[in-house]
């Protein structure tokens, strides 16, 4: 028994992506939710479940109140930052496939650029278990996501001979895709590898253009049963596989103490679950949405998910390998490096558009799209499919 094939994403909604929304985070959340509900051809009164990130500042009941939803039967939160993205859909799919809810809206909305910026230094540690993890690092000024990722990136370079240029190719691909996406912050602004190589150091070996942008905005998704979705106006994006995962000795982005730093074992576990649930193989995936908060982890994800072998991603991304006309187009929307940083939720929406055939950078013959969530943290993933 698995969750495969029982639920579908029937609606997507989003605010504009900006650097300063000028609106409350709750307002962004409900704007995105209402658009997703309408996109699915439903009304707020049809919604009986809400799921968001543990990190979201707008509670399920606050969103319920604004939308005038009479009552919820299912509500849950998924923890660990951007690792929650696909997990919200996994929770919603479990709820609708077990009858705990009929229509679940997953949402993520924040003023991550104009309000609390995740890229700034963490400057206090709580005494809970997560705070204790931070406490082994913050006193050393080891205090930003870029730094935490850079530590693994350096070891990856050491083990496999990857270079800053290999990371740069990911950034160039994402900015190329964003350049033709009018919703993207970097619409019309592609970059060259030279520009990447001369951008300033953030945390060596990561340069400015290895780091995703910071954004204000919200994205919401409507999840319901495949049966119900068939009767709704939009082509359903069927949840063929949905998985969460952690690795051995898992920490919140500090996986340095045991095992291989040049790997993302939590994503490896998610990948194995996705392939097992779906019965698919990497060759069945037309396009992948890989969480691109920092370029090196796109390379390691390609390896963890089996698109290439260990250490081979640097060759896989050469010659436009992950660009629109490459062997595996990654993030046709431009990803978080190019479109916006909505904690991975905008990537799920792009996967749905690719299934619908409605993306601005639409690929042909899309049957299956693989989506991942934040890496370095406990994470999650999805395979979405068109109806056969």
């Amino acid at each position, binding site marked *: 028994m698995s969750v495969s094939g029982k639920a579908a994403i029937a609606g997507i909604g989003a605010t504009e992506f900006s650097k300063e929304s000028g609106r409350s985070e709750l307002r962004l959340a409900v704007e995105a939710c209402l658009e997703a509900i309408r996109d699915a051809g439903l009304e707020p009164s049809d919604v009986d479940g809400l799921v968001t990130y543990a990190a979201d500042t707008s509670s399920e009941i606050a969103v319920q109140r604004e939308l005038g939803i009479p009552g919820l039967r299912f509500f849950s939160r998924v923890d660990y930052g951007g690792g929650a993205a696909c997990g919200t859909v996994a929770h919603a799919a479990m709820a609708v496939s077990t009858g705990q809810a009929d229509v679940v809206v997953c949402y993520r909305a924040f003023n991550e650029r104009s309000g609390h910026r995740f890229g700034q230094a963490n400057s206090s540690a709580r005494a809970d278990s997560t705070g204790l993890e931070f406490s082994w690092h913050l006193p050393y000024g*080891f205090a930003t996501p870029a730094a935490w990722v850079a530590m693994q990136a350096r070891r990856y370079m050491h083990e496999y001979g990857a270079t800053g240029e290999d990371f740069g190719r990911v950034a160039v691909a994402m900015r190329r895709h964003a350049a033709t996406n009018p919703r993207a912050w970097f619409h019309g602004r592609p970059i060259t590898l030279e520009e990447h190589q001369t951008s300033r150091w953030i945390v060596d070996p990561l340069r400015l253009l290895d780091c995703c942008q910071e954004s204000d905005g919200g994205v919401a998704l409507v999840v319901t049963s495949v049966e119900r979705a068939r009767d709704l106006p939009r082509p359903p994006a069927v949840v063929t596989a949905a998985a969460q995962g952690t690795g051995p000795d898992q920490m919140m982005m500090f996986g340095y103490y045991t095992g291989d730093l040049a790997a993302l074992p939590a994503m490896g576990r998610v990948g194995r679950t996705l392939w097992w649930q779906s019965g698919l193989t990497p060759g069945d995936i037309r396009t992948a949405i890989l969480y691109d908060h920092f370029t090196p982890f796109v390379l390691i994800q390609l390896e963890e998910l089996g698109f290439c072998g260990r250490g081979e991603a640097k060759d896989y991304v050469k010659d436009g390998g992950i660009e629109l006309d490459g062997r595996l187009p990654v993030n046709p929307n431009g990803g978080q490096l190019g479109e916006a940083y909505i904690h991975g939720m905008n990537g799920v929406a792009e996967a749905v558009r690719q299934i619908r055939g409605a993306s601005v950078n639409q690929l042909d013959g899309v049957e299956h799209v693989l989506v991942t969530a934040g890496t370095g943290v406990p994470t999650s993933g999805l395979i979405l499919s068109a109806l056969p």
Partner: protein
Amino acid sequence: MTTTQEAAAEPSVHDRLTELAGRLAAAGERPAPPCPDAVNTAMIRNWTQALGDSGDWSRVAPPAMIQVWSMPGLVSEKGGSAADEVLRLLDESGYTGVVATNCEQTYDRYVRAGEHLRPAMRFGGLAGPKKTAMGEGYFVTWYQTWYDEDDRRVAEMLFRVLKFRPRKRRAGAAKPVKPATSLDTAFFWEGAKAGELRIQRCADCGRLRHPPGPMCPSCHSLERDHIVASGRGVVHSYVVHHHPPVPGRTPPFVVAVVELEEGVRVVGNVLRCDPDDVTIGMPVRVTFEDVDDDLTLPQWIPADAPDDEPPPHPEEPALLEIPLTPTFVIATALATRDFTPVHHDTALARAQGTKDIFLNILTTMGLVQRAALTVAPGAVLESISVRLGVPAYAGDTLRLYAERADATTLTVRGAVSLGDHVTATVKLKETP
């Protein structure tokens, strides 16, 4: 809404500042409070003794003393400057931080004992808002001028400060973040205070583990003790942090995962090593960084680094090396008639957020003059133009370097352990 309309009708802070600055500039020069005393040999002697200046000042006063003659002394009412109104408006508008950035003195001629000087002042200008390392702020400039009894100008001084909105977090200024501790982790931090790198050991199966926790993941025992690690290890991976600013560390700095010879890994900074020289596999050894009375951090240095920290500036020997004893800081402040408490009252200085009492600017000007005349004995100064850097705190050592840029120009630099305290250009008069 009326409140919105009122807000709209109210001119912005910037507009008010611009208007005020324009008005002050248009007002031109006005008299400053008179000098309390004529130029006199007693004050000159106090000054030369306090600053350690052994020059011959029997016929004229040291030029860098010029501002001393108009200092009001220990009085309740301050003389004020031509920029006071602007400074007050900036304070009220949230630009509460202040740091002096420039002081430029031009000497038309040296003054002699017995002369009565007449000071005047005028507003210079306002520039901003500008983004600076301290925070957003405005540069405010004003002038002071001294005339002799024939109304001829003898000297002029430009003074510039940055008034800034203090940042919530100041780069490198705040202390490192304190770790949260629990009953499971406190032994590690207590060990660091005792100079021990403690690694948790399962008291039943002997497995070593870092970071520590309450249950052995191998045998599920709740019994634990610790070993004291040898402190030797190798760099397993590392990063060089450049951006953004983080509390307690000055970029670029290195963070490394160190694999101990006991087989567990620990995160820390690699100190006393150029970031460019750090490599994976590099042998390192532990050292202990005392952050304050409550926190000691295990840190890492190259295995072959000497035990004693080398001086931060091992470069060429300084022209003048001045130990900044409290006596020196206080005596020079008083000899320059500067009674601001941050230059003599340690407790009050600390209460205001500085590390200790520190050298006043009038003394810095005098020491730049002293350095210049050591390199160019007998020269006559035309001007001293300084850019001010980090404070020179009591307990530190001020090292002055001077060199000739050309026949009439000297550059002077004064460094303390925190970095450059002053960089100056000194112009000499053409020797006839």
